[in-house]
């Protein structure tokens, strides 16, 4: 409710300020005689800033293919608006619905402003504490744990991708600098597919997405770039304009499917079957690339034998739901295209047979010789541009630290293996089984949980179990910007900065651009970056116990940023130093837009491995074989992919966004709805063995008869949370490259009823 303004005075509410009171400086002497308040007296000479904007370069640090380069317009220390950087041919001047909400997000009155402590976890009774008080309490707890257990294994870090600014690996560094700790490793996101690509090719490495324009046949398989990689769409459109055919294979009729020449609704998780069926047909018609399979691959004959013995087109058609004739047609068109390309989305590997699905798709691309071709390939992701120093991450444990004596080393898809050299190591736990792990981990149990760049109550599985698990924790520290569900379950919350309030550097796992992220505005209220928090904690720890923390006490994020650059990065991007990035983002100097362009694979054999011995070491089949999908345990399949209006729990809560995305829905096929007497707009209860969600229904045949669709997101008003329906069943692959298997997020089932 706003004040009624006098009609004759519309523009501003401070007419008195224009009268120029006390024009000209008040004599210094007079001001000095006034006892100081909380406002500061100005230095008597002041530069009046007028008119022009200060322009800064930023980069969106979210977990998103597009990692946009941003141009920020600041006046008087205030961020007024942003644009996409036009220097990048990928960002090309545009951001997205989420990015444009940043100016509102930075200054949202809902932002957490100060460190706060909850008196009684979950009570909602909070006290404001100073940084000093917060860090003292945390430091004392750390020291207590060390005394009690003889190690710091009782302190655990739950972190993932809330902020991909390279310096934010400093949080892992902070943990190392305290001692050997427990780390939740793995990733809920893409682990199965990463392992698959590593078994097949020795690395995950995709073409430059800007080379889509060269493709003659495009399959977008289990991914939805129209929502999740909007900047790539223009390259796909260009390809279509040049005559390419776009085929979208997905259990849902997504926005991307609506742009396809052909949309194929496959039975969820039967993508591997479909790919194998296509492979069988390609073998039968001898449409494979003989030169490629002979010179650059290993095990093709074994694969062919497998197909002939186990896979028929009719069987694949029946299993996948794709008519046999169409299956043959797509296979032929793809095989004959020069080149054909496949975008393997992350959705298709969030299954118990997810990794197997990707291996089968990889095989299709390999047998047709599309790997290593510009405009071709199987596009999943890459980490080619991530060769930074990880200076913030690599810290030494303090002298005399005791840790875990097991063999586990920290494995992460983003960073090279952290070799300790020492006999001790951190204790690694599966990040995808947070609830289960907290409940069962012992000797020592997890006592102190540090959560950064993650919202487990929003995104992790089996939410009811997680609630129970948290009761076991002695202290929960959460670093965040908004009061989400995890903060609600914290003891201490520490306010974090947005991208505009710190320096860092950003790259993408999809495109090949490098962006600097400058500090455009001061830290809001008492917010601090993860790096600064580490530095402050280090100071406090060493005050209480000398030598207990080795984290550098550097508060200037610019220094952290500078330390990440090296000759390799400079050369790869053709720059002299990071300052070159202030005039705009720079693209890697690529010898070819194609990955694997020299066909020298990083497998043990140096070839593409249809037959992978390494895969068997991890309990998988040598060949890309059919793996049975998870059996339904309830009537409807529940799919919970990502909304376009947010990135997990970020952005949906911003009021600008609420103008366009007011409330959540469950999408049901009209046939199913009729059977349950559910009309469009009715409140519906979705329930299964884990829990339930009550939400409004929309009827559409974008979903199959026995599928229901809900988008995963955090709405600030209401208690909608799809994790009440998702269990923590593992996907098949992920342990090899990421330290833990993934989660079968889309292998969930439920029933529905009118609420």
């Amino acid at each position, binding site marked *: 409710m706003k004040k009624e303004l006098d*009609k004759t005075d*519309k*523009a501003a509410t401070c007419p008195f300020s224009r009268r120029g009171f006390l024009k000209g400086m008040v004599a210094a002497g007079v001001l000095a005689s006034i006892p100081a308040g909380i406002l500061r007296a100005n230095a008597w000479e002041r530069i009046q800033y007028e008119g022009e904007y200060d322009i800064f370069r930023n980069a969106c640090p979210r977990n998103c293919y597009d990692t946009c380069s941003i141009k920020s317009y600041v006046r008087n220390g205030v961020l007024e*608006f*942003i*644009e*996409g950087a036009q220097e990048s041919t990928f960002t*090309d*001047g*545009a*951001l*997205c*619905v989420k*990015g*444009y*909400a*940043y*100016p*509102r997000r930075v200054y949202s009155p809902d932002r957490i402003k100060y460190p706060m402590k909850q008196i009684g976890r979950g009570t909602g009774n909070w006290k404001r504490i100073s940084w000093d008080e917060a860090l003292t309490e945390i430091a004392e707890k750390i020291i207590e744990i060390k005394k009690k257990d003889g190690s710091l294994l009782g302190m655990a870090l739950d972190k993932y991708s809330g902020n991909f600014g390279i310096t934010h690996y400093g949080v892992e560094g902070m943990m190392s600098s305290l001692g050997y700790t427990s780390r939740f490793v793995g990733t809920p996101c893409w682990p199965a597919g990463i392992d698959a690509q590593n078994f097949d090719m020795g690395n995950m490495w995709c073409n430059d997405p800007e080379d889509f324009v060269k493709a003659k046949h495009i399959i977008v398989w289990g991914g939805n770039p*129209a*929502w999740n990689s*909007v*900047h790539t*769409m*223009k390259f796909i*459109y260009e390809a279509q304009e040049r005559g390419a055919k776009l085929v*979208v294979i997905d*259990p849902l*009729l997504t*926005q991307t*499917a*609506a*742009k*396809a*020449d*052909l*949309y194929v*609704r496959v039975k*969820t998780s039967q993508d591997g079957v479909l790919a194998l069926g296509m492979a069988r047909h390609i073998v039968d018609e001898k449409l494979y690339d003989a030169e490629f399979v002979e010179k650059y691959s290993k095990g093709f004959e074994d694969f062919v034998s497998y197909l002939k013995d186990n896979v028929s087109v009719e069987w694949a058609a029946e299993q*996948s*739901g*794709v*008519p046999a004739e*169409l299956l043959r047609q797509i296979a032929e068109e793809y095989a004959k295209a020069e080149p054909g390309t496949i975008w393997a989305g992350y959705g298709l590997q969030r299954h118990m047979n997810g990794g197997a699905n990707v291996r089968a798709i990889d095989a299709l691309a390999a047998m047709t010789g599309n790997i290593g071709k510009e405009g071709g390939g199987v596009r999943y992701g890459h980490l080619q541009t991530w060769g930074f120093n990880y200076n913030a991450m690599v810290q030494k444990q303090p002298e005399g630290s005791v840790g875990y004596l097991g063999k586990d080393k920290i494995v992460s898809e983003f960073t090279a293996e952290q070799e300790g050299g020492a006999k001790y190591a951190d204790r690694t736990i599966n990040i995808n089984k947070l609830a289960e792990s907290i409940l069962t981990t012992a000797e020592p149990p997890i006592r102190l949980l540090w959560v950064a760049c993650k919202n487990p109550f929003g995104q992790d599985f089996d939410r009811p179990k997680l609630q129970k698990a948290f009761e076991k924790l002695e202290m929960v520290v959460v670093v965040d910007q908004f009061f989400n569900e995890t903060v609600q379950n914290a003891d201490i919350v520490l306010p974090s900065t947005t991208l505009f309030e710190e320096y860092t550097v950003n790259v993408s796992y999809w495109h090949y651009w490098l962006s600097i992220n400058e500090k455009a505005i001061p830290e809001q209220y008492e917010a601090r970056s993860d790096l600064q928090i580490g530095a402050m904690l280090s100071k406090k720890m060493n005050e209480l116990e000398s030598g207990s923390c080795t984290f550098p006490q550097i508060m200037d994020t610019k220094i952290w940023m500078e330390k990440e650059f090296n000759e390799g990065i400079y050369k790869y991007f053709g720059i002299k130093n990071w300052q070159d990035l202030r005039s705009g983002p720079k693209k890697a100097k690529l010898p070819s837009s194609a990955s694997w362009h020299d066909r020298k694979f990083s497998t043990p054999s140096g070839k593409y491995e249809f037959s992978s011995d390494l895969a068997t070491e991890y309990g998988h089949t040598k060949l890309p074989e059919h793996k049975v999908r998870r059996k*339904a345990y309830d009537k409807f*399949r529940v799919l919970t992919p990502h909304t*376009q209006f947010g990135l997990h729990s970020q952005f949906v809560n911003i*009021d*600008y*966004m*609420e*103008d*366009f995305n007011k409330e959540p829905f469950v999408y049901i096929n009209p046939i199913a709805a009729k059977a349950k007497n559910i009309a469009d707009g009715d409140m519906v209860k979705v329930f299964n063995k884990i829990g339930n969600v009550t939400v409004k229904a929309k009827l*559409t*045949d*974008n979903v*199959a*008869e*026995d*599928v229901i669709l809900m988008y995963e997101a955090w709405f600030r008003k209401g208690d909608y949370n799809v994790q009440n329906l998702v269990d923590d069943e593992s996907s098949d692959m992920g342990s090899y490259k990421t330290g833990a298997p993934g989660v079968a997020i889309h292998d969930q089932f439920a029933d529905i009823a009118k609420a």
Partner: protein
Amino acid sequence: MKKQLAFMVNSKKCIGCYSCALACKNQYHQEPGVVWRDLTPLAEEHYPHRERAFYSLACNHCEKPICVEVCPVQAHVKRDKDGIVVHSAEKCVYCHACIDECPYGAAKDNQVLKRAEKCSMCVERVDAGLKPACVLGCPTKALTIIDLATLDNSKAEQYPPGFEKHEELNPSTRFIRPTAPQLALAKKDS
């Protein structure tokens, strides 16, 4: 024909991503509830798949704008040099005429500031040689600015299905229709 700048809404390329809508908010910070550009999903009679085709609409910068006609204080003015219909919100006396009369709903009711407001094609950006925020903000270049005087696209329509016809206003916005995919649907998931 005189120069008439206009929005070209290519619904074939449009992915309904709402970047245009938020880019406008990012530029002008309209309060919650006041939306100058929005996406209208095409009804199922016009496009077979629910919430999969959209028209991005703001102001249509008509040839004979009703807002200009009914405004008692000339807060709405159609520029001679390029046809942009510019709204000067500070002149508004909140008589509600434009809000009530524009059949496209381009004039928005700002109940807090007690005035009408409308897209003015980012006229200050255009004058500085820049693209309107929504146009720059479109990641697929589905939303662009054209000059009707030089438009040469046989696919461009003035009144596509789902967009009301008002010949007396002669809206300048042009559209390209969306297309729908060929379908091959597995009946059941199980």
